[in-house]
């Protein structure tokens, strides 16, 4: 936007001059004739309010300079000028030059800005200049605002008011006399005391007095009472300015009306003096109409009437470019350029008006139209468009648009909106628009400008040398011809544009400025690729300036983030690389030079003629201070050498070797020199050590012309670096373009796990530099297959050929359980014997880990010769680690034993025995052998139980026997004197073992008895000393006699007894060392039984007669009454066919409390060897309840009643 005359493009807003805020010295009375001085002698305001108001007006003025659209919400937009107590207005009439002869008639004087006045720059045929706009915008205010104080001191109030009146009257009179229509406005501030001293009425009266005394309009006088705070004052001033704004608009409306009136007169005014110099031409009527339209447009802009402004501007523009104005101005005349300037100014103002109205597409259209029309004019009437001047203007014109978009702040178009272009406004919505007519962001405009600047430079460089010399050095005629030939509108003449000597216009810098502006815009909208493109253009321009560091700084980010290269835009990348290489070479950045050379060797780039393509010559001509060591990787610069690594097999075993191939292919351009690498280092991820291959020029090169050559490389362990176990090999690593060299090697595998070739580092050394280039091998897609000598194509391509699974070395150490037992039982100690047998070829150094997992692990002991370990009982897990067993020779054995303490209950143990060892010959390869043992410990016996009542033989104690009942304490033991019962516990037990066991003892243990009761075992089965063989899964019976007795007779509570059944047993197997098998005791709880209740019971017992022949049976029915009641029972015996009996068939038995009685029947069975059923019914007389008769030995019971076993007759035995 610069280059256009100052003020010609400003946003025109009303001008207000404020006086009385600062104490500038009063202006001297005007020297020049006709100037107008407005002044008053009253002192200016002072104090805080004055300083605040001054800064406030500065702020308002600053806002007034903005180019943004004035919206309805904005109450005013004005420019404010503050002066002291006086203001000088320019003269209304130009003076006559003193040199002319006195005229006969009094001259008609015109404005000093008018082409009619000889003193004006426009005289006699200029159209318009910025001076006129400037006059209205900066010199002649629409409103002259005077600030005064209202003195509240009543003594001097009247005097002050009168002074004020006279001052105002003076100024008014001066204004009226001068002819300016500037409004006079008075703002009176109340002083600090006004609030207290003056009432509203007094103030009203005084103001009214002033107003009347000066004849001011009521709208032109304001009173501001003293305000609380500055924000209040600001608010008041805002509202006053809003009111004044309307007044100001009125002022410009009057001016506009005046301009239109002059236009409608339709006459050509005559200049004060007829022109005597130049063409003596004066303005024609269209010229005048242009002037008037232009003026009305400017005044409309002052009023912010956009429509009216556009209308007038367009009218003026049409006249200007019409047949009568620009067409007839000769192109050599300075007026031609002035007219072009006016056309530009009008267009720019129109563009701005369009943008204000949101007509973005119309604005672009207007922009294009202007360019097309001017280009047409220049072609037709001017010096054509094929010269630097035109391109300069094109660039300027694009810049104008860019600047305008920025200054106007087109809504919805900031960088944050990410909008690339705006949609057309509604008025043009359905139309067929040029794509460019959608307003694009400023980045695009700056780019166009840069493009035209480029064209300007190339045209400038075509200026013949004759024209490039300074004008004073060449003959005048040539200077004249030059002036005609070159378009110098807003651009320097040829000898300044591109001088023969010295610096002319710095086109490159202009372009760089433009491009950087554009780049910022594109970057802000995330258009990184365009930004990169612009960076490249910028870099090229910087290269022409020779500022290589800047080039490098510009391109380095592009190079580093691999833009274009990673996406295979080869031609673009190539361009960037070459520019960058040059910059790097110039600045001595060896690393970048070499990296780019390395990359450009690739045959996918086009070949550059006469380029050496030899890495060794890379740094020729690059100035270096020291020999550089350069490290680059494939993520910075792609490589012309592609590498892949493949293992022969997918899996390998530790301790063995695996074949692998490293294939290096040179994809260099065919013209490139062969590259000899000094060494290659292959690195692995996982359990493989790196391999280094060193170049050895003594080894034969692959001179064969085959595309693929396979070389076997023998590696050796680096002796110095034994720990690392680095492998090195020697081979000839010279790569010809297009050649694939396959290096085959045998890699010893050590540790198990996964190994994958991760990267290969190629080292290249020359006299001038050393280079390490890192290539990643792990990328998928890089893997080729296996190369075989003689074949060009690889075979057996595997996608993960660079990965090897190394299996652990198979252990040959045997671990086993010696003499395994089929089953382990609870309550039995568990001995385990472990045998180790070394079947390896070499002696092994073994360490043992034992780990037991279960619910509760008992104490255990490990015994391995001299090494013994004991571990206490633990829960869940218990272990012995690192039990060193020392060396076990090849094919020799070792035994160790583990003893676990008995388990109290059935359980499960998981035992893991792990032998870690390594061979003496290969200490680096660890080998592991594991023996898992699953131990299921079960119970050896199971049993069920039956408690049967028996008749206690002893008589019951009698209540009447005093001595028996009385406590006779002998010592601490209290003799039991209560009721006693005899029981028989029948145990049926079976062995759950898998083999025969010896039971050496059976015991019944009374574990608990209720207090007040006693229980003891009176009989138990006897077993021989050797015990009894118990076969698995067979039931055995054992009977135990029990006697339960209460301590006292008074105790009536039943007694609970808890019993446990103990089987003592041992295994039957023979133990080698003669020591007998340990006896184990398995205890099984029987459960709880309730005895000695208080209910009466009936017990039947039989006694077979000793005379077997007779077969007589005595049946005793014993009724026990342990209760404390007197009970009566009825006994009835039914006759039966099976036997005859003697005894009462029906009888009644009375029982005293705590007594028992026995009724005896004698039976003579009629049958033998069967059960007979005595039909005996015992009935409680009182409750009428039949009591169950409980059988004892030799009897049983079923649901119908008692059954008595009659043994078979002895004859049957005979």
């Amino acid at each position, binding site marked *: 936007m610069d280059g256009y005359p100052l003020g010609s493009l400003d946003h025109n807003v009303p001008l207000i001059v404020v006086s009385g805020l600062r104490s500038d010295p009063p202006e001297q009375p005007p020297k020049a004739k006709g100037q107008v001085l407005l002044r008053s002698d009253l002192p200016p305001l002072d104090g805080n309010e004055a300083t605040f108001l001054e800064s406030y007006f500065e702020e308002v003025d600053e806002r007034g300079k903005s180019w943004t659209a004035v919206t309805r919400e904005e109450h005013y937009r004005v420019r404010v000028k503050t002066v002291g107590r006086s203001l000088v207005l320019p003269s209304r009439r130009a003076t006559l030059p003193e040199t002319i002869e006195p005229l006969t008639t009094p001259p008609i004087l015109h404005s000093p800005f008018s082409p009619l006045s000889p003193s004006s720059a426009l005289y006699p045929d200029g159209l318009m200049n910025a001076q006129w706009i400037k006059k209205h915008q900066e010199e002649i205010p629409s409103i002259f605002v005077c600030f005064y104080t209202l003195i509240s001191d009543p003594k001097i109030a009247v005097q002050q008011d009168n002074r004020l009146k006279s001052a105002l009257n003076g100024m008014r009179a001066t204004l009226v006399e001068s002819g300016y229509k500037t409004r006079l406005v008075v703002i009176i501030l109340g002083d600090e005391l006004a609030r207290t001293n003056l009432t509203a009425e007094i103030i009203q009266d005084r103001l009214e007095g002033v107003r009347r005394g000066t004849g001011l309009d009521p709208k032109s006088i304001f009173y501001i009472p003293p305000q609380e705070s500055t924000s209040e004052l600001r608010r008041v001033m805002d509202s006053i300015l809003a009111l004044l704004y309307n007044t100001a608009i009125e002022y410009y409306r009057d001016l506009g009306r005046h301009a239109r009136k002059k236009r409608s007169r339709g006459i050509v005014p005559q200049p004060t003096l007829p022109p005597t110099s130049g063409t003596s031409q004066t303005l024609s009527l269209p010229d005048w109409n242009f002037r008037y339209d232009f003026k009305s447009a400017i005044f409309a802009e002052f009023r912010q009437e956009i429509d009216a402004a556009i209308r007038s501007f367009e009218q003026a523009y049409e006249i200007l470019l019409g047949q009568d104005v620009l067409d007839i101005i000769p192109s050599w005349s300075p007026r031609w350029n002035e007219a072009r300037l006016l056309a530009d100014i009008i267009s720019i103002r129109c563009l701005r008006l369009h943008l204000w109205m949101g007509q973005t597409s119309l604005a672009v259209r207007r922009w294009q139209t202007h360019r097309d029309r001017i280009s047409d004019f220049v072609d037709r009437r001017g010096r054509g468009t094929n010269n630097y001047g035109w391109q300069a203007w094109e660039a300027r014109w694009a810049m104008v648009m860019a600047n305008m978009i920025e200054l106007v702040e087109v809504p919805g178009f900031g960088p944050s909106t990410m909008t690339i*272009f705006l949609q057309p406004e509604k008025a043009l919505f359905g139309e*067929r628009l040029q794509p460019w007519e959608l307003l694009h962001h400023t980045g695009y405009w700056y780019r*166009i400008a840069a493009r035209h600047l480029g064209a300007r430079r190339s045209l400038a460089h075509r200026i013949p040398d004759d024209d490039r010399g300074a004008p004073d050095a060449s003959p005048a005629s040539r200077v004249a011809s030059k002036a005609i030939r070159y378009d110098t509108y807003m651009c320097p003449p040829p000898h300044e544009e591109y001088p023969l000597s010295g610096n002319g216009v710095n086109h490159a810098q202009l372009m760089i400025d433009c491009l950087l502006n554009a780049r910022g815009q594109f970057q802000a909208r995330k258009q990184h690729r365009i930004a990169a493109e612009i960076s490249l253009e910028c870099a090229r321009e910087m290269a022409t300036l020779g500022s290589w560091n800047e080039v490098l700084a510009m391109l380095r980010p592009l190079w580093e983030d691999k833009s274009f290269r990673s996406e295979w*835009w080869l031609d*673009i990348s190539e361009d960037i690389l070459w520019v960058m290489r040059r910059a790097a070479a110039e600045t001595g950045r060896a690393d970048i030079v070499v990296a780019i050379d390395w990359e450009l060797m690739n045959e996918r780039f086009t070949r550059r003629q006469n380029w050496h393509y030899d890495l060794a010559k890379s740094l020729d001509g690059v100035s270096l201070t020291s020999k550089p060591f350069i490290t680059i990787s494939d993520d910075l610069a792609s490589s012309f050498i592609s590498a892949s690594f493949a293992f022969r097999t997918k899996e390998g075993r530790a301790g063995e070797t695996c074949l692998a191939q490293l294939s290096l292919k040179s994809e260099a351009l065919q013209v490139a020199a062969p590259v000899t690498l000094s060494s290659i280092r292959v690195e692995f991820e996982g359990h493989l050590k790196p391999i280094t291959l060193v170049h050895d020029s003594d080894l034969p090169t692959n001179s064969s012309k085959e595309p693929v050559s396979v070389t076997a490389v023998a590696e050796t362990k680096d002796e110095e670096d034994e720990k690392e176990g680095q492998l090195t090999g020697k081979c000839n690593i010279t790569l010809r373009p297009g050649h694939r060299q396959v290096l085959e090697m045998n890699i010893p595998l050590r540790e198990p796990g996964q190994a994958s070739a991760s990267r290969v580092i190629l080292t290249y050394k020359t006299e001038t530099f050393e280079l390490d280039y890192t290539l990643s091998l792990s990328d998928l897609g890089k893997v080729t297959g296996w190369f075989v000598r003689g074949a060009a194509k690889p075979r057996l391509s595997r996608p993960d050929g660079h990965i090897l699974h190394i299996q652990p070395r198979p252990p040959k150490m045997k671990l086993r359980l010696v003499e395994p037992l089929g089953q382990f039982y609870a309550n039995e100690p568990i001995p385990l014997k472990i045998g180790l047998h070394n079947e390896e070829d070499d002696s092994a150094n073994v360490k043992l880990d034992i780990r037991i997992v279960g619910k509760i692990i008992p104490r255990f002991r490990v015994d391995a010769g001299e090494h013994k370990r004991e571990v206490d009982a633990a829960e869940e897990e218990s272990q012995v680690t690192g039990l060193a067993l020392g060396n076990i020779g090849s094919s020799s054995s070792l035994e160790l034993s583990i003893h676990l303490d008995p388990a109290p209950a059935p359980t499960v143990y998981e035992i893991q025995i792990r032998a870690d060892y390594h061979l003496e010959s290969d200490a680096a390869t660890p080998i592991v052998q594991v023996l898992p043992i699953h131990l299921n410990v079960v119970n050896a016996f199971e049993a069920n139980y039956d408690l049967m009542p028996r008749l206690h033989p002893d008589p019951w104690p009698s209540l009447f026997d005093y001595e028996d009942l009385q406590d006779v304490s002998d010592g601490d033991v209290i003799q039991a004197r209560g009721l006693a019962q005899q029981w028989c516990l029948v145990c049926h037990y079976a062995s759950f073992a898998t083999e025969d066991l010896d039971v050496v003892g059976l015991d019944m243990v009374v574990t608990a008895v209720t207090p007040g009761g006693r229980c003891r075992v009176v009989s138990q089965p006897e077993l021989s000393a050797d015990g009894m063989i118990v076969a698995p899964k067979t039931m055995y019976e054992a009977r135990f006699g029990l006697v339960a007795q209460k301590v006292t007779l008074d105790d009536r509570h039943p007694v609970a007894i808890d019993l446990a059944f103990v089987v003592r047993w041992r295994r039957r197997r023979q133990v080698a060392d003669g020591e007998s098998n340990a006896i184990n005791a398995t205890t099984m709880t029987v459960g709880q039984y309730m005895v000695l209740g208080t209910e009466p019971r009936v017990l039947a017992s039989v006694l077979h007669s000793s005379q077997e022949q007779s077969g007589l049976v005595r049946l005793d029915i014993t009724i026990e009454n342990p209760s404390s009641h007197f009970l009566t029972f009825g006994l009835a015996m039914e006759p039966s066919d099976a036997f005859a009996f003697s005894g009462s068939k029906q009888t009644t038995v009375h029982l005293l409390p705590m007594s028992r009685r026995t009724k005896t029947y004698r039976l003579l069975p009629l049958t033998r060897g069967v059960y007979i059923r005595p039909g005996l019914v015992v009935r409680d007389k009182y409750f009428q309840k039949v009591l169950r008769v409980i059988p004892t030995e030799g009897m049983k019971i079923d649901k119908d009643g008692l059954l008595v076993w009659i043994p078979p007759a002895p004859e049957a035995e005979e």
Partner: protein
Amino acid sequence: MSAAIPSVACLGVIGRNNNPLHISIFPSYDPAANTFSPIRNPLQFSLLLSSTIDVFDLRSKSSTASGDFGLLHAIDDRLAAYGFETNTGVRMVCIVDMRGRRVEAGGSGVAGQGSGAAGASTVGAGLRDSELKPVFRAMQSAYVRLLQNPFYDPDEHAPLGGKGGRRITSKKFGDDMKRIGEAWTPGVTTL
């Protein structure tokens, strides 16, 4: 009296990995020399095509269901880039030269292969997005024909997850592009 009408300056196909698959460049009318020559050099066209990727990326956030992106941006007052994206992420770009072809006023003779009637009606006027649809339709069907070729492996041209990719070397596809670029003129509905 002759007027300029739009013509195709460049057709580009950009792969899924933002890699160039195909670039065809067409000559534009140069009024100064009265000849046909490409308006920019191949490198500049490459840059123009790559710059459209940014716009595609920017716009794909507000997805267009049809894949037709319309005007991507105007590069300057002469060139404008239009774009289309297939379901598989292949992007087709048509760079139009708004003054690429000359047409005699009156619609009798049209330089190039454009149809006279259509040419006459659009002299000097702009261009609607929809007028480029036939171009993209034709480009897409040419691309589909290319994909139907069993020897064409799309993964080779845009490796999955990888970077870059080869260019399309099919002569038939190139011929198709040439035909489309030469035949299009505003108003043409089928290519």
